């Protein structure tokens, strides 16, 4: 396991040095899509994680063809370096990172600290409209070696590492959703039996940047993550667990890590599956 940090994470100085680089596309991904309109990194295009990355009817990704059409329209080419950043400590940017990887984009990176660190450091933002020339993007078949579905989550009990990255109160069943969101979500509260609870926030500093590799290894080691087993990460809807998936697979270099994007809103509504309560 060797760290790939330099290949997958960039800092603000790197961004400012590459603002004019035609092979680098900056993409802002937010839950609150009005954030971008209030100011963004110069040249960055906007991606709406819900309206553009989720199918409008069934609960799933958009199709390979629709993803290719989306990236073509945004002016993103297959050979471009895509640098993602966003609010919520990069939750949705990390989700988009994982999503781009599922559809096979070669060079994707995250801006360490996302929008928050950029703002707190007083880096320049603009409201100038951005237009990029359309491309002809080709997406790959979904890479399901990094995406878990409900049957795999169920089969993982007592077999794989299950990492529940929600807050302790969601893990125990006290809350059904993060405290800034309304609580009507899954039918039941609790967690998948055997899951360890390592809230995503423990992998990040207050300013949203990732902790060091040594700190991260210690964090998951002390929480009981077994290096010899494959891992499935989950949260409520798969965005916070993308953050942890990024840490385990992309920063720490674990081989077989999947993100379960059905997550608790799916598992906690399944009929007849085992649920554990409490810490």
């Amino acid at each position, binding site marked *: 396991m060797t760290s790939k940090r330099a290949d997958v994470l960039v800092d603000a100085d790197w961004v400012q040095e590459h603002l004019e680089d035609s092979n680098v596309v900056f993409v802002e991904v937010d839950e*609150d899509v009005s954030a971008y309109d209030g100011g963004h990194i110069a040249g960055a295009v906007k991606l709406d994680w819900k309206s553009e990355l989720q199918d409008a009817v069934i609960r799933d990704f958009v199709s390979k063809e629709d993803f290719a059409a989306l990236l073509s329209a945004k002016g993103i080419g297959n050979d471009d370096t895509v640098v993602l950043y966003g*609010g*919520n*400590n990069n939750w949705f940017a990390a989700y988009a990172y994982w999503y781009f990887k599922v559809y096979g984009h070669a060079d994707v990176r995250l801006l360490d600290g996302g929008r*928050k660190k950029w*703002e*707190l450091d*007083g880096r320049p933002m603009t409201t100038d409209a951005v237009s990029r020339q359309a491309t002809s993007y080709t997406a790959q078949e979904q890479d399901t070696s990094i995406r878990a579905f409900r049957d795999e989550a169920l089969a993982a009990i007592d077999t794989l590492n299950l990492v529940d990255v929600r*807050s*302790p*109160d969601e893990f125990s069943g*006290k*809350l059904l*959703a*993060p*405290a*800034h*969101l*309304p*609580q009507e979500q899954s039918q039941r509260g609790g967690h998948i039996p055997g899951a360890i609870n390592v*809230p995503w*926030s*423990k992998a990040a500093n*207050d*300013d949203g940047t990732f902790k060091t590799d040594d700190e991260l290894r210690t964090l998951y080691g002390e929480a009981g993550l077994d290096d010899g087993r494959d891992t499935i990460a989950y949260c409520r809807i798969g965005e916070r667990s993308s953050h942890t998936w990024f840490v385990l697979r992309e920063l720490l270099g674990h081989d077989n890590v999947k993100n379960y994007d059905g997550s608790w809103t799916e598992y906690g509504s399944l009929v007849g599956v085992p649920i554990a309560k409490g810490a």
Partner: protein
Amino acid sequence: MDLTSETVIQGQVLREGSPVPAAYVRLLDAGGEFTAEVKTSAEGRFRFFAAPGQWTLRALSAGGSAEHGLTADKGLNEAQLELS
């Protein structure tokens, strides 16, 4: 928002009495664990859906920081954070 069943913690971030927009407010549980984070509105306001119990609010902006502890009950709980 159903205040008969939900526990809402909301309030405002101020600096020298004026609202601070775009400040980051974190909600930490009784054990000091991160629970949620939101950004204040143009009027410096924020809102969390929590549960009854002990909580800590922490605000962070380019202009300073603030911390505030509270005990929340079911219904509406108001808090003010003054940056320094």
